[in-house]
């Protein structure tokens, strides 16, 4: 049975009619508000304000349009999606439209009653993020007190309500040594799935890269730990392992190819090929307030720009992997090489690859990492991590 995964994993199949193919998943960033301040947040540095967010009716219309377009799964994310008081109204419409609904939450603002109500309205799955299984460390990473205890409670509710649970664990320098305990925690919580997600360095994470980057030895060790646990827990818990591409030789097929399988709607309604794509200059992002979702997907300038392979330069253009990894990530190419059409510096064929790896090696070897720049709505300032 073929497996196509809208978020993390992608089958290595050549593209067939990539442009005409409807997306499989839609990441709905309902809000940028969040009580946590994790320094690796994938939201942009410029966060959308509450008064600019789409209304309930506008989000409901996005859900209906998504189903019409052929989208199968909707990932309700943020920020923290549960800070929207109308989450129930959005979930209800999404479920009625036939979408598979996934709540991506930090959990700390949830109540049991609300979760129960969301289930009744058709919520299919809960993905609960954790920062670490060590209280003090979790607090340091999220800048939020007693978060772990609350997450434990939320995980218990999810299972009591007989809903499937995924534990999402972003992995970095500060918690990578705790990985075995993080896996144990997910098993204890009754999770059917765990995402061991090494940080991908965009937005806030890129800003904090020197404070977050693990060493190559740590990454190799973590891969071994995951492999062992995967075998031991076969049939109990499914693993998704997202590797840090700074130590890779071939780039990841970012988003499964630009404009190929997924789309992203920001709190304000801008439609993006990926959550980081606003960092690429020269792209025009249409808004759901002005244009139909299907039209944006098929014809929007931002989606067309790097869709398929015709935009490629060498070494991507003649590369046998061109339709397997699509030249990696445009945002990373932009950030590191200054041209989004260059091959991803994670690729060993990139002239920037050596410098890219060297940056990770240098930063991860620093005995004292720099303080975190916490993810905040207002002007940012550094706060000591210790």
């Amino acid at each position, binding site marked *: 049975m*073929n497996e196509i995964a*809208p978020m993390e994993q992608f089958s290595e199949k050549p593209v067939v009619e990539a442009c005409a193919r*409807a997306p499989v998943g839609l990441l709905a960033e309902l809000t940028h508000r969040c009580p946590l301040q994790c320094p690796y947040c994938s939201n942009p540095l410029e966060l959308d304000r509450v008064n600019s967010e789409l209304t309930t009716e506008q989000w409901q219309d996005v859900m209906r349009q998504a189903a019409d377009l052929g989208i*199968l799964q909707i990932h309700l994310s943020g920020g923290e999606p549960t800070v929207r008081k109308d989450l129930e109204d959005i979930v209800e419409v999404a479920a009625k439209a036939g979408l598979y609904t996934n709540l991506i939450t930090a959990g700390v603002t949830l109540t049991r009653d609300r979760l129960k109500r969301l289930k009744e309205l058709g919520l*299919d*799955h809960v993905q609960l993020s954790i920062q670490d299984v060590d209280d003090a460390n979790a607090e340091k990473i999220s800048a939020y007190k007693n978060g772990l205890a609350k997450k434990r409670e939320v995980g218990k509710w999810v299972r009591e309500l007989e809903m499937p649970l995924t534990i999402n664990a972003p992995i970095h320098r500060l918690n990578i040594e705790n990985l075995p305990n993080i896996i144990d925690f997910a098993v204890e919580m009754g999770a059917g799935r765990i995402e061991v997600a090494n940080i991908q360095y965009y937005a806030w994470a890129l800003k904090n890269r020197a404070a977050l980057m693990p060493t190559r030895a740590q990454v190799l060790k973590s891969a071994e730990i995951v492999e062992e646990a995967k075998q031991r827990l*076969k*049939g109990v818990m499914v693993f998704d392992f997202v590797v840090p591409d700074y130590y890779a030789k071939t780039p990841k097929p970012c988003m499964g190819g630009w404009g190929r399988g997924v789309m992203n709607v920001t709190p304000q309604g801008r439609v993006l090929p990926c959550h980081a794509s606003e960092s690429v200059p020269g792209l025009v992002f249409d808004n759901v307030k002005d244009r139909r979702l299907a039209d944006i997907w098929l014809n929007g300038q931002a989606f067309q720009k790097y869709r398929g392979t015709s935009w490629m330069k060498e070494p991507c253009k003649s590369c046998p992997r061109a339709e397997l990894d699509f030249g990696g990530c445009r945002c990373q190419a932009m950030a590191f090489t200054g041209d989004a059409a260059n091959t991803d510096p994670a690729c060993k064929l990139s002239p920037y690859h050596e410098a890219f790896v060297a940056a990770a090696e240098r930063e991860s070897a620093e005995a004292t990492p720099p303080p975190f720049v916490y993810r905040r709505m207002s002007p940012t300032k550094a706060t000591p991590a210790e």
Partner: protein
Amino acid sequence: MSTDATRTRVMVVPASKPALPPHIKLRHDPGRGRWHVLAPERVFEPDPISIEILKRCDGATSVEEIATELAKDYNAPLQEILADTISMLQELSDKGVIKAA
């Protein structure tokens, strides 16, 4: 719920009665003209034989009964079909797509 206490790998045998848990959805997609299995952050594209097996996973029919029916429908040897069905369902059980009680 009781399932967490018994968190061990379930082995699919001829007497197992597989079922799709409520959060796993076998759906026909009219736009693409094919069936999908929707699972947490996963979409599977079952092949025609997998679809026939999944449609019969009702929690009441045993794997052996499913295989017997398919062997008849496809005019194929039962032992072969049974072995294929078990291996496919084991893989799906390991991925959390079916529950084999």
